[in-house]
């Protein structure tokens, strides 16, 4: 019997090739997207299985006060100094370790490399069971030791053999301090958060003891209540049978007891986060549910594909009413007929799954290669889930048509042939509508996101971005001492217009701030003021306009850094002046406010007010800024005339090498700094666009199939209408209208839905696009016009056919 069912199913598929093709391709695409989305989400959410202790490892996250105004909601770490209190505050922990990433110039023999090193506490090796090729877990106990991964050892020491005799070899950091290789470990897999592809962080290749930083850059983590840098995580190893709630409680108590009071206003809570979530913490941090969205979108695409199938199968089965009537007359029970029709949909689903698997075999390696991931399709592991999905898809999409066709009585189905029922179906209209709700919704979101991103992209124009070369890593003593010489040499180059040193360049997502107060006695008047350390050429180099007062000047001592001075002259932006309570920029000139410190306050006198430039760019608000002159800056900007750029770059590098021969120049264009961040927005948009295009294509493919089928069903009617004098456009319009109603209804649902959902994305930005409703309307129109186009394509051919052929064999 089953064989008979399968034979009939296969014959039917072969007989109606066009519809079978549309069905199978639609389901295959839906399944591909769904399986891929699920595997990808599973991959991103299940990093770090490589480590034996994964289930016991936690990180500490900081939750920022909504008033903090720093553009993110949470960070995947907290202040290093807090780590000092964990051992006593949470005695149940087996180990804790912090990370601080710091870049150094590494010298090995005659070669120099800029290399990011992860400095960590010795317990790091207890928490993470690294795979030691040489050396062992005690490697970090000695403050002058260093652990290399295999690929780092090969890179620095030349060849594969170097790994085995790497121990004892030394590397020199910033020409000052040497570290000795104590162990070499295997590279960590790409699916650990250390090498996460979510953020463009460097892979973990070199590990060194935190204590080494004391000597290197005079850094003491115990005193660091000032820096939170994403990715510098703090790890905890909990005992085997720990209770999460207890850990959370003791962490909360430790926070209460040891977090400085003024910091509690900024970081309102610290939270435990399982290590497995470290990889996706970035998205939580910025408040965009990207990973969850992928899950939802993948399911939606599958839904569209299933609805496609249901729709087309319903229509098609109506054409088989006669066959069903005959079978029932010959004694087939309803159950047998149901099985017959469900067998058919299951076979279609199975074929679709096989095609999907083939597609995935091709897509996943390509995806891995282009995004540096190691997503794998573990066929055996996902087999039960795949089988279940396929059966569910087959039953759900085939269920309704099978139910419908077997519901009618044999007499009805014999008599009625292929009339009425096939055409008029509320359920079908609802299903077409549902598909287009999903497709138009996604399309609208993509477009809103696209236009918002275009707006974000415009922040690149806030500064002369394409004319600026950023010199990085200048805060090394030996370089800092030479910056004045460097400036004087660079400015003499023919195409260099200006040189300025500062603490951060525009678009870098750093928030350096202090508490500012015009009246130190009144605590309520205090607010968080962003700070940017600049030099005298800052305004002219970055085209920041002065509104009132004067620029800082070398001629005036108090404008610059003066050892021991209690008062300094500064520039502020308009917003800062306003927040300090000045009625206009002019009235702020000559007035003072205070930088509130732990035990002393510094008096800052405003000598100039500049326009509100959005230094951080992108999604950020304009923030109150104070600009003060300092020496020993972290970055430099060289503004050049955009002609002969190649030559200018060579000249700049030549000057650098002459002035600072010990350190290779490290530079990038300001465009690239912008691009590093912008790529995140663009990637989200592209990913969503891919989903939307698939959903819309599926809906259109389905509509095409349905339109073709319906037109076939209406051949006689079309023939009559043509004989009555209907023209081709009139017939086309008739056929189009049949499908327009559900699509237009879909608009009514999808557009408001999109309007509310897009706020999820738009709320993230301070400067939002106007008229999102207009954009959404355009998305709706695209959906409708595409639907019309696809129906018209087929309708035109039908309408052009000679009416006589339609009526001849009546």
């Amino acid at each position: 019997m089953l064989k008979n069912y399968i034979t009939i199913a296969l014959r039917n598929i072969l007989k109606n090739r066009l519809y079978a093709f549309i069905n199978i391709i639609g389901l295959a695409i839906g399944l591909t997207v769904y399986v891929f989305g699920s595997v990808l989400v599973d991959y991103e959410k299940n990093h770090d299985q490589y480590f034996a202790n994964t289930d016991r490892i936690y990180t500490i996250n900081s939750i920022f006060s909504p008033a903090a105004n720093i553009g993110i909601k949470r960070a995947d770490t907290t202040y290093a100094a807090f780590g000092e209190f964990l051992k006593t505050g949470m005695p149940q922990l087996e180990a804790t370790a912090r990370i601080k990433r710091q870049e150094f110039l590494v010298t090995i023999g005659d070669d120099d490399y800029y290399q990011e090193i992860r400095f960590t506490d010795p317990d790091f090796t207890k928490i993470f069971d690294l795979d030691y090729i040489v050396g062992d877990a005690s490697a970090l106990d000695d403050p002058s030791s260093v652990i290399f991964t295999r690929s780092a050892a090969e890179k620095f020491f030349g060849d594969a053999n170097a790994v085995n005799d790497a121990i004892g070899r030394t590397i020199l950091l910033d020409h000052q301090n040497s570290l000795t290789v104590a162990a070499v470990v295997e590279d960590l897999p790409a699916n650990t958060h250390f090498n996460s592809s979510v953020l463009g962080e460097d892979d973990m290749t070199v590990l060194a003891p935190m204590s080494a930083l004391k000597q290197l850059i005079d850094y003491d983590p115990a005193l660091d209540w000032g820096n939170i840098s994403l990715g510098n995580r703090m790890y905890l190893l909990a005992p085997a049978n720990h209770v999460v709630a207890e850990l959370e409680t003791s962490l909360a108590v430790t926070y209460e007891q040891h977090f400085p009071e003024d910091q509690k206003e900024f970081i309102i809570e610290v939270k435990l986060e399982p290590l497995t979530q470290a990889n996706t913490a970035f998205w939580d941090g910025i408040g965009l549910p990207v990973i969850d969205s992928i899950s939802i979108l993948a399911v939606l695409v599958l839904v569209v594909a299933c609805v496609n199938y249901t729709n087309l199968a319903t229509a098609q089965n109506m054409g088989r009413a006669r066959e069903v009537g005959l079978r029932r007359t010959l004694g087939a029970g309803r159950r047998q007929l149901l099985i017959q029709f469900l067998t058919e949909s299951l076979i279609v689903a199975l074929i679709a799954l096989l095609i999907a698997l083939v597609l995935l075999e091709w897509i996943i390696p390509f995806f891995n290669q282009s995004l540096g991931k190691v997503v794998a399709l573990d066929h055996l592991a996902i087999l039960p889930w795949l089988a279940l999905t396929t059966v569910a898809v087959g039953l759900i999409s085939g269920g309704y048509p099978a139910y419908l066709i077997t519901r009618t009585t044999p007499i009805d189905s014999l008599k009625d042939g292929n009339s009425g029922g096939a055409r008029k179906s509320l359920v079908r209209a609802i299903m077409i509508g549902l598909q287009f709700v999903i497709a138009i919704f996604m399309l609208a979101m993509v477009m809103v996101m696209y236009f918002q991103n275009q707006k974000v992209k415009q922040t690149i124009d806030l500064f002369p971005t394409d004319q600026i070369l950023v010199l990085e890593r200048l805060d090394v003593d030996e370089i800092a001492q030479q910056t004045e010489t460097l400036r004087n040499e660079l400015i003499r180059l023919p195409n260099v217009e200006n040189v300025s040193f500062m603490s951060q360049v525009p678009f870098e997502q750093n928030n350096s701030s202090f508490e500012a107060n015009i009246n130190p006695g009144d605590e309520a008047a205090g607010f968080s003021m962003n700070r940017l350390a600049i030099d005298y050429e800052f305004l002219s180099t970055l085209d920041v306009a002065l509104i009132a007062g004067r620029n800082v000047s070398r001629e005036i001592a108090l404008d610059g850094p003066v050892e021991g001075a209690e008062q300094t002259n500064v520039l502020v932006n308009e917003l800062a002046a306003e927040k300090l309570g000045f009625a206009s920029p002019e009235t702020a000139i000559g007035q003072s406010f205070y930088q509130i410190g732990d035990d002393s306050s510094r008096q800052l006198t405003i000598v100039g007010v500049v326009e509100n430039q959005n230094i951080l760019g992108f999604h950020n608000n304009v923030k109150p800024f104070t600009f003060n002159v300092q020496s020993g800056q972290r970055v430099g900007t060289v503004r050049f005339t955009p002609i002969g750029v190649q030559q200018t770059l060579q000249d700049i590098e030549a000057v650098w090498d002459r002035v600072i021969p010990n350190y290779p120049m490290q530079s990038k264009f300001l465009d690239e700094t912008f691009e590093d961040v912008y790529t995140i927005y663009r990637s989200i948009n592209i990913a969503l666009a891919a989903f939307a295009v698939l959903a819309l294509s599926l809906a259109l493919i389905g509509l095409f199939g349905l339109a073709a089928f319906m037109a076939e069903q209406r051949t006689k009617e079309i023939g009559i209408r043509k004989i009555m004098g209907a023209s081709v456009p009139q017939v086309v319009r008739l056929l189009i209208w049949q499908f327009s109603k559900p699509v237009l209804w879909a608009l009514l649902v999808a557009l408001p839905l999109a309007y509310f959902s897009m706020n999820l994305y738009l709320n993230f930005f301070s400067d939002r696009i106007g008229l999102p409703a207009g954009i959404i309307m355009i998305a709706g129109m695209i959906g409708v016009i595409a639907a019309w186009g696809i129906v018209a394509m087929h309708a035109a051919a039908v309408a052009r056919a000679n009416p006589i052929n339609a009526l001849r064999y009546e």
Partner: protein
Amino acid sequence: MLKLHNLSKYYRTDEVETVALDNVNIEIESGEFVAIMGPSGCGKSTLLNIVGMLDSPSEGDYIFMGENVAGYPESKLSNIRKQNIGFIFQSFNLIDELTVEENIELALLYHNIPASERRERVAKVMDKVGIAHRAKHMPSQLSGGQQQRVAVARAVVGDQAMILADEPTGNLDSAHGQEVMEMLQSLNAEGTTIVMVTHSPAHADYARRTINLFDGHVVTEDLRAAV
């Protein structure tokens, strides 16, 4: 009214060429009632389709109201057709989803006639064929004779000068068949030209002239006096 001159129609497949009409010469005057008879496959329907401009001849001329339409494109033919020709089919060819009223209105729908006038004309013609009491019914609720009356109404509602009827009584019992024939006769009496394909000699007798076709040729033309 119309004149076919040396008109031929071939159907070609890859291997065979079938001659459906071979060198046919027919002239039909305005106001005539012509029956076309002949065995199955003799070309009756092909002839009717060409006369009705649903099909084009392979060779020869077709002069309709002084115009040679033989080489006209479909859009032009369609225009002439909807102004002048009404059709009645053996299988009625009503649209199942439309009511009696709407089916008749269909013939006016593509003529740029205002809705009020359409309603008026439909009502009038329904009275004429005696189907007014069934105006809101669907075709499936009517008997065959009633359905054919609706089809006749649809054929004449546009004041077409000529009606082409392809075995209009073929699906009807004799009483209903006679009813339809009488209706056609009275239309003819009012001046409508009627060309009818039929198998029934009795029904052919309603016509003034019978054209007998055989294997694509006109064999005989019988003229009879008005009944």
